């Protein structure tokens, strides 16, 4: 019970901090809008080939949800460094709740924020007139959650090894962009793409997330890389692995 209340209180903190940060919520509309509006339109008129009868916007839309989840998750995870620099981390680590609970509390909190961002993108898609059914959201939500848990855990794990926020650029270059480009978010990873790229992307957990999102959002217009259940299984396995690694990383005592 004590552990659950500890997890709850850490979750609540992250969500409160997020909801009080107006600037971040407003800016969360802007990036997807740039991708869908400018990038999507530009590529379409420049003659890009997307599979089936899909418009470029429709094709990249699930990818942009994935990208938003990825970037937000990493950013939130990394924010642990902020807590370290500003001392708050000590208050958490000196408390009697277990490191597993500390990790879960932060992970759930950051994931909630990331999923809210993903939801905002979904609403944006509706507003932009993409062929979306509001009920689709119910299928999208669990996939978003599965993607996010693992990604936030990566961020938290990496952050637990880093001492200062200056290293944030490193995360951008070595985690965010590679995972993004190799996920099939903005171009289809299928026949016609070089084998090395296909192989590399098969090691990327986000590939399975984006594929699952496309499966539920695009329906028959999309021929999936893998069956939905397979994508979900891979993501579950990835989440469990990352949560385990993250907890171990949080349990180190200097």
């Amino acid at each position, binding site marked *: 019970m*004590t552990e659950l*209340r*500890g997890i*709850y*209180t*850490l979750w*609540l*903190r992250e969500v*409160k*901090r997020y909801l*009080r*940060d107006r600037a971040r919520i407003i800016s969360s509309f802007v990036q997807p809008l740039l991708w869908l509006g400018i990038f999507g339109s530009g590529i379409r008129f420049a003659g890009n080939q997307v599979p089936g009868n899909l418009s470029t916007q429709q094709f990249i839309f699930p990818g942009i949800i994935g990208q938003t989840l990825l970037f937000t998750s990493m950013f939130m995870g990394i924010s642990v460094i902020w807590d370290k*620099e*500003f*001392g*708050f*981390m*000590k*208050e*958490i*680590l*000196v*408390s*009697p*709740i*277990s490191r597993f609970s500390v990790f879960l509390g932060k992970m759930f909190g950051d994931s909630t924020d990331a999923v809210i961002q993903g939801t905002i993108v979904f609403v944006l898609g509706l507003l932009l007139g993409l062929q979306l059914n509001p009920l689709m959201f119910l299928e999208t939500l669990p996939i978003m959650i599965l993607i996010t848990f693992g990604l936030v855990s990566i961020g938290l794990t990496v952050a637990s090894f880093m001492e*200062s926020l200056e290293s944030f650029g490193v995360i951008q270059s070595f985690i965010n962009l590679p995972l993004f480009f190799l996920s099939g978010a903005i171009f289809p990873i299928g026949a016609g793409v070089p084998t090395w790229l296909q192989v590399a992307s098969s090691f990327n957990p986000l590939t399975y997330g984006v594929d699952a999102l496309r499966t539920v959002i695009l329906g028959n217009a999309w021929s999936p890389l893998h069956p939905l259940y397979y994508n979900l299984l891979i993501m579950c396995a990835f989440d469990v692995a990352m949560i385990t690694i993250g907890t171990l990383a949080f349990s180190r*005592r*200097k």
Partner: protein
Amino acid sequence: MQVKPLENAIETTELTRRFNGLVAVDKLTISVERGEVFGLLGPNGAGKTTTISMLCTILKPTSGSARVNGFDIAKQDTLVRKSIGIVFQDPSIDDRLTGRENLYMHANLYGVPPGEQKSRIDRVLKLVELESRADDILRTYSGGMRRRLEIARGLIHYPRVLFLDEPTIGLDPQTREHIWSYIEDLRKAQDITVVLTTHYMDEADRLSDRIAIMDYGKIVASDTPIKLKETLEGDVITVKTKEADKLSSILAGTAGILKTNIAGEGIELTVRGGRAILPRVVEAAAKNGIFVESVSLREPNLSDVFLHYTGRAIRAEGSDELHGLSAIRRRRIR
């Protein structure tokens, strides 16, 4: 959680911590009695915070061992953490939350039963006089208010030992005075042991029942502030009188008087245990019909004690080492 009442609050045995070859804490063996305020006095970099970090189970000792409230810091870290409160040297509160939210979070992290949280939080807020500001976001608090909130937070879960790491660093004199009186009130109101680190002499002197002087990771002296000061030979009693020569010859040979010096309008006696000798001096003068205009006693202060044991003066406040963001932060909250 069972704690034997007679057991010391803290016992360390050759507690040692090295950082890449540098010995920060060197075979520290101390014991802190239940209910006392124990002051760890030393300059910056003496190893005080490292010691506290080990006792709070944030840092692992390189060698040696310690028990806090009877629990081993290496093997029973959760039990140790449950039984202590700590106010860190650097701020450790969430400034995007309100004061009350910070306290609720702490109560939940420390497993305070939900039914008791509100009353305990109201009580500590009252203790530090922050009731009226409790629902403001912390960003709007002054440095002193944040410090008070951190002290309040450290008390919510009824710790048996409270660690205060440089509780008044960087605060203005008025706020320091405020915090000192809280700490004094606290031990009257609660059954609590306080371990205080400081590099301020006046703070250690005023608050501590016992002081350990720490330098280069070692304890160089440990006793009550009064006894520490007594170890220095030389309280100075100054007697102002017109008959200095006569008084001086009467006092010659009195036990405890180490040196007599006739200077202008009176005499200066260097004595051991000035408080006990002062009345004897006045009595002797009265018995012999010598009119004494005034008497004064100057006892050595802790700075003299520190100088005596370490061979140098404690570094002044201005040389606080501040690094990176915490420096910015520190300046901001001033």
